[in-house]
């Protein structure tokens, strides 16, 4: 199977993703790496808590990877998402797509992260020094 989906409670490894997607048939690999930013709208963030409805999150991530494989000539697709408490600078998500030609890898990787943010049941709470907020919950 050319799809690797993982929801992990431990730090994500870009090297692992690269090693997994890199195949001899593919010349172009695009990785998207999402990390925890130190501030939101100028307000300093102390930490992020991610939680997931895990079986559905894995299932929705798999759907995204399968759609990528249908729409683009992708040989390999990795989607790894972290859950739990994350410090500033830690990696929350890695998406890696390997295709014979690079234009497809860019388009597919961008589709995957855009869709992940819309459909995968994962929630994050930003912890500030003086409070906390569920990200994107309110209009």
């Amino acid at each position, binding site marked *: 199977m050319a799809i690797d989906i993982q929801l992990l409670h431990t730090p994500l490894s870009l090297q692992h993703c690269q090693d997994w997607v890199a195949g001899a048939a593919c010349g172009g690999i695009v990785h998207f790496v999402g990390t925890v930013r130190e501030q939101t709208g100028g307000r300093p963030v102390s930490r992020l808590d*991610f939680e997931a409805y895990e079986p559905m*999150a894995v299932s929705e991530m798999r759907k995204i990877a399968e759609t990528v494989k249908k729409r683009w000539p992708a040989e390999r697709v990795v989607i790894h998402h972290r859950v739990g408490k994350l410090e500033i600078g830690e990696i929350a998500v890695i998406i890696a797509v390997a295709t014979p030609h690079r234009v497809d890898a860019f388009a597919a990787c961008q589709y995957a992260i855009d869709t*992940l943010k819309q459909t995968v*049941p994962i929630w994050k709470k930003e912890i500030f020094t003086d409070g906390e907020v569920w990200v994107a919950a309110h209009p």
Partner: protein
Amino acid sequence: MEIEIMAFGIARDIFGASALKVQAVENSTVKQLLEDLKNQYPKLQELRSVAIAINTEYADLEQVIKPGDEVVIIPPVAGG
């Protein structure tokens, strides 16, 4: 019929619990359940969106909830 609803994120904070049991008539739809929940927990109405998942899939508003279904309330997601 009794429906157990699991809650994550801000929905759990609004419910004050990670699971909730509600009474519903037989053949209740997702739409009816959402209306009842929004009436009982008005703060749900302030959210950008509220969806229901049944058995780990997003449910249509017209979908009928069956006994034994795994029902989850999905407040706005924010992965990535």
